[in-house]
């Protein structure tokens, strides 16, 4: 067995290491290089959830109920799945309001009520004391086991004198350590970077220690998981642990424990402290939602093997809560036992440090300071610097809380296993759930609702869980359990005759029922007043800071606010904070700050960081000429919060539309560039087309001009060419002008009833000479009764002549044939000009309707037209609502077809 002094030395060295880590982290933080600004550190520090309950108690629970220890860790896993928005929302709200504790959070939410803050504090302190007792019990047990052997624990006299009780010394050492640790200086934001770093370190230590003992038991003592469970399956008493009791009550209590731990992981003062108050960066929450559950999983892997292994090792008599120590001890592995002891110590110190710091902040800010400040006889309102007093109160609070924990341990600790004690605390903090979660998502909760709900839930909890724990340990008369005055209906653990539930589920059901009913019922009695509505806007809505500012109807000058803040956080720090605020508002000097509501709000939130929001409000109100706050303006902000959400959805919609519009614009721009290129092409083509006849004209003119000896015959021929080229030039220019007019929409159109057959016949006649000259056969098939269309006669003529002259150009002389026919279709008339020329390959069939594009290869064939006829024709036909296209196969001729709708006049006149 280890010597007591070795354990003591090891403990002190370990605490010294913790202190060094905290000191180092604080120094780093002061230097601006925070070590805890990392999501993994944040997740590890959340591991403060695993106390000696987990370290020693889980094994005890597993030895009694098999997997019954697990819901306590499954619940947080589920809660953290929601943590991504629930926890983040709490963190955001808390940061915006400089919330320093869960009491502050609730008080602040319901109109910064001091009464509410005090009530939450009382519930938290009373509720958590059994939990602290649990830590004392576990550490002192482990000490006794290591120093005296396992037999001592069972044989331990319940009423050892206080001065010989190791738990008493554990409590004193922990109190001293926590005071040194957490209240060295008063932080304006109540953040303790050094503490968080130490807690993260402790999480690693306890996980490692548990892993070592787990591996030792599983693979050192036994031969792996299979071996342990295989052997256990042969012992009927142990085989039962592999399954849960298959009853409704068993599943019910499983669900109740899961639910309870879901709430506790958010609402326990120490979890709130670590997860919310000490959070450095909101984004760390994201990583923790899976890393923290992973930590819980790892620390639980070996629980059941150790429990089963321990039961086989000690068939009877040894407290299962100490198996992690006694199993290695019984095999002479003192080093492992010492490591386990350190692990358990780290689990206990982690819990006690954070819990008591959180509770002491609450006691100081929400319980003691409000009372002291009201007690005029003390003259506190005249003392220039109260920051020392604040620290003093916190130190005393830590000492008192630990002593209360010890007192509970003496009174009731022996009657319960570790886990059972912890569950009592879980059920107490679960009472915060309606006020906290309701306050986050329901705008209409009021101060009275929260007060009534919390009080009712707390009273029912105390009656059904706390007092019975006293009664069971003989501290209260045992006939209390039979109901007061012998009233069976009021039996604390079978309230109103509700039997069949375990005591935790029973208490949880009745207390939360009373709590929620009162919270909702009292909240609905009246609508929220201005202050509550304003805080609802801040908590439920988007955290609009204006709601906080608007609660101050009036202002106050710096000269009054600065000394006020200085009294609580120290004059120098107050001056620095005010200077920062002045800079942020663009004011050069602190004294030049305008005495408006914004300044008052700033001073209030600065104070809130030190003394809690409720007290801060009271203190600030003492120097501000308070005008009634503007309820309408606050309600507007509340409405705005929902409008803002609607707007943001609208904006998203708009931005999607904008993206679509941008894409369209980009396409249009592309098209414009294309058109620009086409225009350049057009101009260069036009110049080229004009230059060809001009060159020819100039060449022949120069020849005539320079050589007078050319004979008449030659002259005549040259002049003929010149006339011909001039005509071509004129035609080209006419067509370009025509096209330009058509495209710009400035062409003159005379629209009227036109007999299409007449137009076709006339065109054919006017070109018949040309056809005859070339020896091309022209067949015309037209209906007798001409269809009437609404069009410009001359323009239609132009189209027909163009198509006919194109056809004659491309067919071979002598063998060429061109056929023209017109027929009336259902809604229009269709004219076809077909030839037996070379045809147009499919890839060119659209191209020939572009300007200056001609059939046949440009390189090999001499151009036979201007290249503008077809584009012009298409423009004309389309203008009158028709279509012009070509159908052709290479080598098999081409058919140019256009359609025109039948004119209305044509339908009625005939």
């Amino acid at each position, binding site marked *: 067995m280890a010597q007591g002094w070795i354990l003591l030395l090891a403990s002190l060295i370990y605490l010294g290491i913790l202190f060094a880590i905290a000191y180092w982290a604080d120094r780093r933080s002061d230097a601006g290089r925070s070590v805890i600004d990392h999501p993994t550190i944040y997740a590890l520090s959340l591991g403060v959830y695993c106390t000696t309950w987990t370290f020693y108690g889980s094994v005890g629970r597993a030895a009694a109920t*098999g*997997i019954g220890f*697990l*819901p306590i860790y*499954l619940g947080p*896993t*589920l809660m*953290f*799945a*929601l943590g*991504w*928005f629930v926890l983040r929302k709490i963190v955001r709200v808390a940061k915006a309001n400089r919330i320093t504790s869960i009491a502050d959070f609730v008080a602040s939410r319901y109109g910064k009520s001091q009464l509410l803050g005090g009530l939450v504090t009382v519930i938290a302190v009373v509720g958590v004391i059994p939990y602290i007792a649990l830590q004392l019990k576990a550490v002192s047990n482990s000490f006794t086991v290591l120093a005296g052997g396992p037999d001592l624990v069972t044989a331990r006299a319940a009423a050892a004198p206080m001065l010989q009780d190791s738990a008493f010394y554990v409590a004193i050492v922990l109190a001293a350590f926590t005071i040194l640790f957490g209240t060295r200086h008063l932080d304006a934001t109540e953040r303790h970077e050094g503490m968080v770093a130490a807690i993260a370190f402790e999480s690693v230590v306890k996980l490692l220690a548990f892993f070592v003992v787990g591996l030792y038991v599983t693979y050192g003592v036994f031969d*792996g*998981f*299979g*071996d342990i*469970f*295989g052997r256990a*399956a042969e012992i009927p008493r142990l*085989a039962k642990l*592999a*399954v*849960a009791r*298959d009853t*409704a009550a068993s*599943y019910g209590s*499983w*669900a109740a424990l*899961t639910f309870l731990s879901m709430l506790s992981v958010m609402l326990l003062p120490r979890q709130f402290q670590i997860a919310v108050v000490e959070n450095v960066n909101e*984004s760390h929450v*994201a*990583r923790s*939602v*899976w890393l923290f*559950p*992973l930590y819980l*999983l790892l620390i639980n*892997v070996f629980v*059941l093997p150790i429990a089963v292994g321990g039961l086989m090792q000690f068939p009877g008599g040894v407290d299962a809560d100490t198996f992690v120590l006694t199993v290695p001890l019984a095999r002479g592995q003192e080093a492992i036992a010492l490591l386990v002891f350190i692990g358990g110590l780290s689990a206990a110190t982690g819990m006690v440090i954070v819990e008591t710091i959180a509770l002491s902040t609450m006691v100081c800010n929400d319980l003691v300071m409000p009372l002291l400040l009201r007690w005029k006889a003390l003259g506190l309102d005249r003392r220039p610097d109260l920051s020392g007093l604040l620290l003093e109160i916190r130190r005393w609070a830590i000492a008192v809380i630990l002593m209360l924990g010890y007192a509970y341990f003496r009174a009731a600790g022996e009657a319960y296993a570790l886990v059972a004690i912890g569950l009592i605390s879980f059920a107490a903090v679960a009472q915060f759930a309606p006020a906290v979660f309701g306050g986050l998502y329901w705008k209409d909760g009021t101060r009275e609702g929260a007060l009534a709900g919390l009080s009712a839930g707390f009273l029912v909890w105390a009656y059904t869980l706390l007092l019975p724990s006293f009664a069971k340990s003989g501290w209260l008369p045992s006939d209390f359990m039979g109901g007061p005055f012998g009233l069976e209906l009021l039996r604390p653990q079978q309230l109103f005759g509700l039997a069949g539930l375990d005591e935790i589920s029973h208490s949880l059901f009745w207390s939360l029922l009373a709590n929620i009913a009162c919270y909702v019922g009292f909240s609905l009695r009246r609508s929220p007043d201005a202050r509550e509505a304003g805080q609802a806007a801040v908590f439920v809505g988007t955290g609009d800071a204006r709601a906080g500012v608007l609660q101050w109807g009036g202002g106050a000058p710096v000269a009054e606010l600065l000394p006020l803040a200085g009294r609580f956080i120290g004059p120098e720090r107050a001056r620095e904070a005010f200077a920062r605020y002045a800079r942020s508002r663009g004011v050069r000097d602190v004294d030049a700050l305008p005495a408006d509501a914004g300044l008052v709000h700033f001073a209030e939130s600065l104070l809130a960081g030190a003394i809690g929001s409720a007290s801060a409000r009271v203190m600030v109100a003492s120097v501000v000429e308070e005008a009634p706050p503007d309820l309408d303006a606050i309600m507007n902000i509340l409405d705005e919060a929902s409008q803002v959400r609607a707007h*943001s959805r609208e904006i*998203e919609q708009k931005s999607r539309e904008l993206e679509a519009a941008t894409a369209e614009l980009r396409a249009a721009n592309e098209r414009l560039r294309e058109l620009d290129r086409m225009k350049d092409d057009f101009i260069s083509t036009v110049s080229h087309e004009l230059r060809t006849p001009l060159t020819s004209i100039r060449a022949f003119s120069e020849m005539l001009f320079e050589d007078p000896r050319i004979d008449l015959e030659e002259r005549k021929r040259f002049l003929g060419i010149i006339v011909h080229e001039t005509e071509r030039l004129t035609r080209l220019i006419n067509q370009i002008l025509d096209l330009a007019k058509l495209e710009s929409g400035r062409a003159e159109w005379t629209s009227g009833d036109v007999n299409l057959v007449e137009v076709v016949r006339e065109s054919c006649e006017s070109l018949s000479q040309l056809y005859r000259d070339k020896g091309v056969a022209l067949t015309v098939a037209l209906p007798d009764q001409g269809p009437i269309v609404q069009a410009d006669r001359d323009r239609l003529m132009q189209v027909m002549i163009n198509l006919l002259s194109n056809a004659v150009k491309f067919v071979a002389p002598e063998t060429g044939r061109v056929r023209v026919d017109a027929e009336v279709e259902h809604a229009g008339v269709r004219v076809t000009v077909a030839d037996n020329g070379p045809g147009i390959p499919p890839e060119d069939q659209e191209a020939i309707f572009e300007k200056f594009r001609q059939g046949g290869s440009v390189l090999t064939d001499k151009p036979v037209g201007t290249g503008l006829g077809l584009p012009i024709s298409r423009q004309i036909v389309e203008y009158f609502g028709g279509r012009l296209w070509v159908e052709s196969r290479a080598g098999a001729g081409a058919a140019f077809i256009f359609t025109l709708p039948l004119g209305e006049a044509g339908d009625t006149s005939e």
Partner: protein
Amino acid sequence: MRKSANERRLTAQRLVALFLLGCALFNYPVLSLFNHPAQLLGIPLLYAYLFGAWVALIALIAWAVERGSD
């Protein structure tokens, strides 16, 4: 860590869905399906199931939050 509003909404919905999945996996009646004295690879079935489901749930939650955050 920047995510668009749409991605955030999707992440939130995935997490709520995983929460509900977890509620179903860790409670009656699903639990009772594995509540036999049987063993899986030498480990009691219920114990193996709970830890298996737990690991899977944590993996899915990790997938949901870490996706696209880097």
